[in-house]
């Protein structure tokens, strides 16, 4: 068994099956103390189950959960001492906000005076100080969520688990809560484990990000590294907003050179490892981030440098986010998106218009269509 190496909690070879259905398959993950770990994945990828295993609400089919340096797998949920914010608010409707927040403390037998102080502190941090006397059914959705979070953190412990706490909340509420949560974690320096299926939320909150797809962690690490250099197709697809564009293609290796052919362009590639030096042919997915696909004015098209790959597409929808706009395109059957920023004075195409686009070769990442692993990337030209 590997040493836990300062990790405050750790999953070792965790697998979980319900009947015949595998939900989690052999999953390893270590979380250092004081980390804000975001487990990020599409809905139904196994995020909640993973947290429930950590909480002790489910037993793994195989593998162990280590907590604070001991094997906690046989330890009951009640003894694990983790603060918990469940997915739906699960506020006790018969208790006041104050009693809801104090609930974990009351169960733990914290003296009444201390309880009140902790409740006050938690309520102040989450800006719900004036709601303490109310009942949950008198609160708005955002307020309920704040109370649920306050209850989760008002516990004498240093590990907190939040199961997609902002799901279903209004956009504006999320914006505020994300910020408050980040500040909260930095102030308390506790270890947070947080799940979400929202890419921006994940990128904003995470010190470390674990991308969970179909019960497996496809990649984990600092969000910026995952964003810039994803080793797996799913990482590139999921980490970032709008979603990455993928174009199917074929990668051909001959005479020591690699070429990738797609319906949109043909480009020279360099392999990620020596393994792909030998001649061969692989079916691949070429990933290009929306912001790397740029709109080109007709007149500048001819003057594009060799490092740019030109192609064209039709605008199908423009979604205005305010600060920026997502342009949905159709490039001969391949759906694409790009992002334009208004204040940057970029092109302003009309709906249904045919536009010229270009992508820089060095921004392309090539993934094996079968395994999803990254096998090549566009060659950087020296003058780029």
């Amino acid at each position, binding site marked *: 068994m590997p040493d836990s190496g300062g990790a405050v909690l750790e999953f070792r070879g965790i697998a979980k099956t319900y009947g015949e259905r595998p939900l989690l398959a052999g999953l390893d993950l270590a979380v250092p103390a004081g980390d804000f770990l975001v487990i990020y994945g599409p809905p139904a990828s196994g995020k909640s189950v993973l947290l429930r295993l950590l909480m002790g*609400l489910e037993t793994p089919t195989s593998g162990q959960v280590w907590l604070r340096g001991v094997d906690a797998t046989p330890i009951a949920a009640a003894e694990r001492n983790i603060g918990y914010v469940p997915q739906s608010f*699960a506020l006790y409707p018969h208790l006041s906000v104050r009693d809801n927040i104090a*609930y974990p403390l009351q169960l733990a037998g914290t003296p009444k005076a201390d309880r009140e102080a902790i409740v006050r502190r938690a309520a102040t941090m989450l800006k719900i100080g004036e709601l303490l006397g109310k009942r949950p059914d008198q609160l708005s959705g955002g307020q309920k969520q704040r109370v649920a979070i306050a209850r989760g953190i008002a516990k004498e412990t240093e590990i907190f688990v939040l199961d997609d706490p902002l799901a279903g909340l209004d956009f504006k509420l999320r914006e505020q809560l994300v910020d408050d949560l980040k500040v909260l974690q930095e102030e308390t320096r506790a270890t947070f484990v947080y799940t979400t299926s929202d890419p921006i939320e994940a990128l904003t909150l995470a010190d470390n990000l674990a991308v969970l797809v179909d019960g497996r962690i496809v990649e984990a690490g600092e969000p910026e590294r995952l964003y810039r250099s994803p080793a797996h197709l799913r990482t590139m697809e999921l980490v970032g907003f709008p979603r990455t564009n993928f174009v199917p293609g074929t990668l051909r290796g001959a005479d020591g050179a690699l070429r990738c052919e797609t319906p949109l362009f043909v480009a020279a590639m360099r392999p990620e490892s020596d393994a792909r030096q030998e001649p061969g042919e692989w079916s691949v997915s070429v990933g290009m981030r929306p912001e790397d696909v740029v709109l080109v004015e007709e007149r500048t098209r001819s003057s594009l440098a060799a490092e740019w790959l030109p192609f064209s597409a039709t605008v199908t929808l423009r979604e205005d986010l305010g600060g920026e706009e997502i342009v949905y395109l159709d490039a001969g059957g391949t759906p694409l998106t790009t992002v334009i920023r208004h204040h940057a004075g970029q092109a302003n195409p009309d709906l249904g218009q045919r536009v010229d686009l270009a992508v820089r070769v060095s921004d392309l990442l090539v993934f094996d269509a079968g395994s999803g692993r990254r096998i090549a990337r566009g060659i950087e030209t020296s003058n780029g």
Partner: protein
Amino acid sequence: MNATARIRQGLYYAVLWGIAIVFFLPVLWVILAALKTKKQIIAKTPVWFFEPTLDNLQRVIERENFWKYLRMSVFLSLGGVMIALVVSFLAAYCFSRYKPRGTNFLMFLLLSVRMVPAAAVVVPVYLMYAAFGWKDTFLGMVLFYAMFSIPFSLWILKGFLDGVSLRYDETALVNGGSRLHIIFRVVLPQVKPGLVAAFIFNIIFVWNEFLFNYIIGGKSVTMVPVQLQAGVNSGGSADWGYIAGLSTIYMIPPILAIYAFQKYLLVGMTFGTVRGEV
């Protein structure tokens, strides 16, 4: 709203009230009878307007053992239903949360037996009670009524418990709450409406029950309906004043209960399979 619309609405409400009154009329007739003299009751021309007399009611109250029977009705109803609620709440929690194998089968069986004509069950129960010497004992009767109330209570409570998110249990669990704490302090407060519905519904059933009380009861545990039946079947001419008086007194609690707990009526009448109010 203009005048014609208002008149139309007034008419509509009048019709609805009319329907309600028509349905209540037979009951009203009995209540009236309770306030009539014997002559007025059996008058060939129906008497609608008369000077009410309390003679019948007084006779009912003064009749030997009236209070004893009424007390028995109250004790047996309350006792049986309370026991049933405790037993079925615990079972419903188990069924809802642990989902043991055979849950559905057991729930089905319990309900089926409750759906059987009472006359079919009464034979073996009678023989069993006779054999064990439980006939005409308070415990035997109250436990029987508990059993009588368990199936519907279980169905109602299971439905309500299934509606309480498992997250509540889990939140308590991870904070160190015991199962008993969860059952009584976390879940129980949230299924109060279910408890009320089950309570009201079953208590009306037991309150009105006749057959079993008649067969497996006896002098010491007789409830009012048995007494009522005795009145109706006492020889050739029944004492209608007495019967009407006794019924009138006995129907007051159920009518008050429907008025006060109307929103639980639907849940109760369909033993929890249809939720909501009308």
